[in-house]
């Protein structure tokens, strides 16, 4: 038996830590947190999925997208319209969000992946900015900044019966279920041969092309898959909030998954979820204390980008390695910076 | 003037120069000879600070310049004529010349005097450098390096890639500069030109200095020519 050196990306999280996080997520409603924390838990999981979908594109394929808000927003609105205008259920809403974002992603992807190297990110910014303007302009459809109140019909779960999304515990588990399934699917994608091609593109696009891969097609696949999961995240967030408005399309929202991923650690899928929970969770408390929370987040991101680009998971691994080395060597080692 | 003391230079992980040492005294012309890939251009780039050596020291005029930024090395008075000429293609010839000054002040008289040596450059001051022929670009590159009246001139393959008919002209200019009293380090494939102007020749092979010879000795020694240059 052999193992791949890096089953997922370049930095990985210890299985034990992952298990602990999973158990916490699973038991969150059981340990007696109040309704508000259940609401926040569900919302942050949806944000985490949004971050993870971005990581699929940036962390694995190396394509930095500043236009993910478009998928988040399109998913949210597609689900909203399915529910409000066509009287569909929550699952159909998710499916509609998934399919609508795929459609949009194929269209936008055909523009974005054709552009050379750094052109990609610039086109995605352009897409985000244009979407923002369109969403504000068509306030009749999007509800503008005032938004639309979304009422989600009761959800029927096979074998278990009908539940209301206003039940905080149900809402939490519903979100957790959708997020876990989505994360699992993304994980399967990145460990499939296609995922290997994604990483080859990230590492050396030209070489991947010269080995016979249609790099443009693979980039499009990554873009569309990533967008589709962002769309699901957008729909979930809307179900949880029961509200949607045009600011879903703002550039700031486009930057959110970037922050989650950079903080949590890229090329890990789960890092973005951790990042989202930490940032949004801390924000929820700190913003009650100080108005300057966004300022702190911005500064944190800046420091992260300039000093520790591998994120918290990278920092954790680095600390772990250092501790192990100390234990092994017994003599204290001088300050060593590992260069990976 | 220039003293390079056992430098080792890498491109990424690739170890290009091994323990290379050589010197150029004031008003001396020294040449680096060797086959393609022997490390001549890398040596020049190491001196300029473009690919700084990992170990070893480079002294210019008694000062240690190892690891300095290329711009501060150039502003100490080193003129650099790179391989492939490296014009600023969208600038005019005059602007290309002025770029050669770095932080040094502009001296119109000096530029006029340069045109005596490079008349074709003076005729094309307003032309965009990208539209010049290879030979003309080479002349601009040389004039550009001379704008600041350098204490040391680094010439990397001045006749390379030129049309055969142009080579004698460039060779002649190179000879004229050499006899004008500049301290020069030259890399050149044209063995005859080097034999004519160099005071001393360093032979490179696989990134190492193999031998140091005088032009006279090299001319007589076919074995060395065969070994280092494959002639």
């Amino acid at each position, binding site marked *: 038996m052999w193992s791949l*050196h*890096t089953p997922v990306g370049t930095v990985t999280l210890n299985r034990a830590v992952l298990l602990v996080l999973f158990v916490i997520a699973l038991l969150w409603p059981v340990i007696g947190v109040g309704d508000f924390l259940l609401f926040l838990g569900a919302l942050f999981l949806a944000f985490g999925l949004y971050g993870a979908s971005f990581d699929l594109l940036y962390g694995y394929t190396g394509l930095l997208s500043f236009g993910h808000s478009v998928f988040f927003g399109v998913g949210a609105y597609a689900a909203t319209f399915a529910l409000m205008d066509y009287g569909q259920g929550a699952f159909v809403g998710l499916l509609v969000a998934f399919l609508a974002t795929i459609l949009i992603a194929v269209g936008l992807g055909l523009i974005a992946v054709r552009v050379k190297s750094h052109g990609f990110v610039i086109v995605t910014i352009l897409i985000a900015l244009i979407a923002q303007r369109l969403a504000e302009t068509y306030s009749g459809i999007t509800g503008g900044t005032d938004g639309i109140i979304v009422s989600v019909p009761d959800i029927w779960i096979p074998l278990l019966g009908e539940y209301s999304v206003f039940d905080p515990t149900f809402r939490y588990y519903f979100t957790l279920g959708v997020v876990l399934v989505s994360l699992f699917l993304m994980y399967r994608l990145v*460990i499939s041969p296609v995922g290997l091609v994604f*990483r080859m593109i990230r590492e*050396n696009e030209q070489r991947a092309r*010269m*080995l016979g891969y249609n790099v443009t097609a693979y980039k499009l696949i990554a873009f569309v898959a990533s967008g589709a999961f962002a769309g699901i995240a957008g729909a979930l967030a809307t179900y949880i909030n029961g509200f949607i408005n045009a600011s879903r399309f703002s550039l700031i929202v486009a930057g959110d998954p970037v922050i989650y991923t950079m903080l949590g650690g890229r090329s890990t899928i789960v890092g973005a979820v951790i990042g989202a929970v930490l940032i949004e969770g801390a924000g929820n408390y700190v913003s009650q204390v100080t108005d300057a929370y966004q300022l702190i987040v911005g500064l944190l991101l800046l420091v992260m980008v300039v000093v520790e680009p591998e994120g918290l998971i990278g920092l954790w691994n680095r600390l772990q390695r250092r501790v192990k080395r100390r234990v092994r060597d017994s003599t204290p080692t001088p300050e060593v910076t590992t260069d990976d | 003037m220039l003293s390079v003391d056992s430098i080792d230079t890498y491109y990424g992980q690739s170890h290009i120069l091994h323990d290379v040492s050589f010197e150029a005294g004031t008003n001396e012309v020294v040449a680096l000879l060797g086959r393609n*890939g022997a490390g001549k251009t890398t040596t020049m780039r190491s001196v300029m600070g473009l690919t700084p050596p990992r170990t070893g020291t480079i002294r210019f005029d008694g000062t240690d310049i190892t690891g300095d930024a290329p711009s501060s090395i150039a502003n100490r008075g080193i003129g650099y004529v790179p391989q492939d000429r490296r014009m600023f293609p969208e600038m005019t010839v005059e602007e290309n010349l002025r770029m050669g000054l770095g932080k040094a002040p502009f001296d119109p008289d000096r530029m006029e005097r340069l045109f005596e040596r490079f008349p074709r450059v003076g005729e094309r001051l307003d032309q965009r450098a990208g539209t010049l022929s290879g030979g003309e670009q080479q002349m601009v590159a040389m004039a550009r390096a001379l704008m600041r009246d350098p204490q040391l001139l680094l010439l990397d393959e001045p006749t390379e890639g030129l049309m055969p008919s142009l080579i004698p002209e460039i060779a002649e200019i190179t000879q004229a500069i050499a006899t004008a009293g500049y301290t020069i380090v030259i890399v050149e494939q044209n*063995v005859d030109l080097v034999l004519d102007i160099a005071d001393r020749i360093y032979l490179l092979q696989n990134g190492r200095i193999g031998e140091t010879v005088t032009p006279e000795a090299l001319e007589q020694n076919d074995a060395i020519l065969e070994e280092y240059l494959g*002639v």
Partner: protein
Amino acid sequence: MTETVLETVGLTKEFDGFVAVNDVDLELTQGEFRGLIGPNGAGKTTVFNLISGLAEPSSGSVRFNGKEITGLDPHEITSRGMALSFQITSIFPELTVRENVLGALHSGEALSNLLSRYGTDETKLDRVDGLLAQVDLDVHVEKQAGELSHGDRKVLELALALANDPDLLLLDEPTAGLSASETDTIKRLLAELRGTVTIILIEHDVDLVMELVERITVLHNGQVLAEGTPDQIQADERVRKIYFRRDH
């Protein structure tokens, strides 16, 4: 019967009025080992780019395995059985050595295996590990490619090119920047390949080419100056002259 693997007819490339490659005809038969030499600026790398589709010829055509490939995208050309090894090592630094070769081997069929986990197909793994053993990289399989020495990277570069059993191997200076012992390793690998695959070896190191190949094409100023066996080329006065530029 020997079949023609690669044929170029009147291959020409102009850049802004400068003719980098001028009317080059090449013909390679099955299993041939061809050297392509010439001084700096002779157009060797441009020929490499024109054959592999990295650049499009201004005129002329390239036929590969009997089919016209002029103007196709590089990935279409390489997926037809041409493999390339670059002068500047081009590998996937953060993937392991095994993943590098696995990725090269997957070429084209990754999409049909969307539901599988890469690296679980035993036949593929055996082939990857066999290839890595053949090039003496088997001790490094789990290492990140970026951690390899420069010489081993060049070997990996070669292994990437060999992964898909190519019909034609296009090598651009596989020994550039290598030490003498590293060069020997590559030389040995190339000697082992002789006859099993059609190879074009682009090199500035004339001695290396003379030792390895059956036929040599000499380029000068973008044109074919001479073609023949190593002995014929060595004896050719014109070749001596352009290479060494000594007039007396």
